[in-house]
């Protein structure tokens, strides 16, 4: 599991595929309102693209672009986004996680709940993404 494979076919195919995998992951996260998908699934796909780069291009290269420390920060920021999406409506006179009381002007109650779901799904996606990359790094034994 150390270093890169030095196989031009594997490296070329994986670095060609990774941007498409990541765009598909963002699509899955944001398309959860209209079809199958959501934060959990999109976060897993996003983490899978990072794991592919770590396996093919080597950890030394990939840790410079997305370090294990950054993965932990992403997961923590994701859970904070979710928690604040619950706490902010509490401060504006609603219940916990009552997105209809989010302080965004110019939107009706239903549209606020629509955007609240999107904020929450983004937070979930970041948590799953960061946690899976952290799990991969630790199980593979690379330094954090």
């Amino acid at each position: 599991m150390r270093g890169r494979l030095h196989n031009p076919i594997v490296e070329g195919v994986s670095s060609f595929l990774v941007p498409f995998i990541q765009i598909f992951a963002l699509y899955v996260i944001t398309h959860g309102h209209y079809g199958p998908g959501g934060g959990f699934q999109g976060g897993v796909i996003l983490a899978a693209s990072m794991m592919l780069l770590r396996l093919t291009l080597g950890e030394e290269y990939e840790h410079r672009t997305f370090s294990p420390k950054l993965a932990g920060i992403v997961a923590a920021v994701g859970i904070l986004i979710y928690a604040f999406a619950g706490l902010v409506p509490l401060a504006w006179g609603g219940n916990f996680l009552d997105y209809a009381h989010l302080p965004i002007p110019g939107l009706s109650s239903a549209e606020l709940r629509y955007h609240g779901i999107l904020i929450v799904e983004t937070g979930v996606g970041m948590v799953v993404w960061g946690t899976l990359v952290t799990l991969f790094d630790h199980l593979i034994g690379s330094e954090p």
Partner: protein
Amino acid sequence: MNWLTGVILALFFGLLIYAESDLPDSRAVTAPARARVVDLYIERSYPDTRTPNIVTSVLADYRGYDTLGETVVILTAGLAVSLILPRNSRRG
């Protein structure tokens, strides 16, 4: 198991039995488990949240507190692994 543990367990058992008597009768028509909240979700999901996918609106809006707990569970699993596994072990 000494006698104090036995007494505490017996008291706790009695407390659970006492609390159980306050639960609604699961066979009654008016029990919360038979209130058919499903119909409410199907009817109200689109007008409430503008989300055509009812699964998403239930997951993130109506049952958002549940999903928050699930997300914390995932984060806790990652934290536990990074705390338990040794930092600088170069095994592979």
